[in-house]
């Protein structure tokens, strides 16, 4: 995968709070619009950001220690939107979670646990790495 430290990445770093979620979303949407991304893809991008960022906001920094999120974004080639999400919270690999059993009847379904599943299904590629005490999640959309 392309390295986000190369100059063509745009970055936004804000504290991991709910009120910053729409600012992160708007940031990526703005970038994505440069390559005339369709409204349907933009909605998927928005959804994937809501799920992944909210998870970091809710679970990554449990000890009331206010952490931050770094979100990188680039347009590596025609029709590709590349998003990198970095946090220094507790180690968590979302791709290691088994998919929920979406075939169960209602009474057996737990409320919740669908966020990561939606991310994996909506994005075209998702990769995780733990590096320098940080969670690095790379998400690629074909636009």
């Amino acid at each position, binding site marked *: 995968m392309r390295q986000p430290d190369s100059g063509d990445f745009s970055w936004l770093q804000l504290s991991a709070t*709910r009120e910053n*979620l729409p600012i992160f979303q708007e940031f990526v949407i703005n970038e994505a619009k440069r390559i005339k991304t369709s409204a*349907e893809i933009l*909605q*998927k991008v*928005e*959804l994937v950001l*809501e*799920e992944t960022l*909210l998870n970091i906001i809710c679970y990554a920094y449990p000890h009331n220690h206010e952490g931050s999120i770094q979100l990188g974004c680039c347009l590596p080639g025609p029709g590709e939107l590349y998003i990198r999400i970095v946090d220094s919270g507790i180690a968590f690999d979302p791709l290691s979670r088994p998919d929920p*059993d*979406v*075939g*169960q*009847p*209602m*009474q057996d*379904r737990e*409320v*919740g646990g*669908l*966020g990561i*599943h*939606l991310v994996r*299904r*909506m994005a075209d590629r998702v990769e995780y790495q733990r590096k320098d005490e940080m969670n690095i999640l790379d998400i690629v959309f074909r636009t």
Partner: protein
Amino acid sequence: MEISSQKMDKALIIIVSGRLDTTTAQDFESTCLDLIGNEKNIVVDLQEVEYVSSAGLRSILSVGKKVRSDGGSLIFCNLKGMVREVFEISGFASIFNIYETREQALEAA
């Protein structure tokens, strides 16, 4: 997000519009439960809903379970675009009864 309801002979119709996301899901859940009260047959019309995230699904499932445990049934109609996709990916399209139009939903209710 906005919610309104309409009492028909066969069912209570709940009409939702806007976004069902982390900022609105709680409100959706409590408003729905208020509107439902003791009604048994509920049709939720999602025609004007353009976005639903897992927070929205969470609230929908909570409402569904509540209605079911009271012996009623919750059915959906008019799922559009990403709302339909999210229902499919999450299996909600199979745990709930889904209809193309409000008329079809009312007939089945």
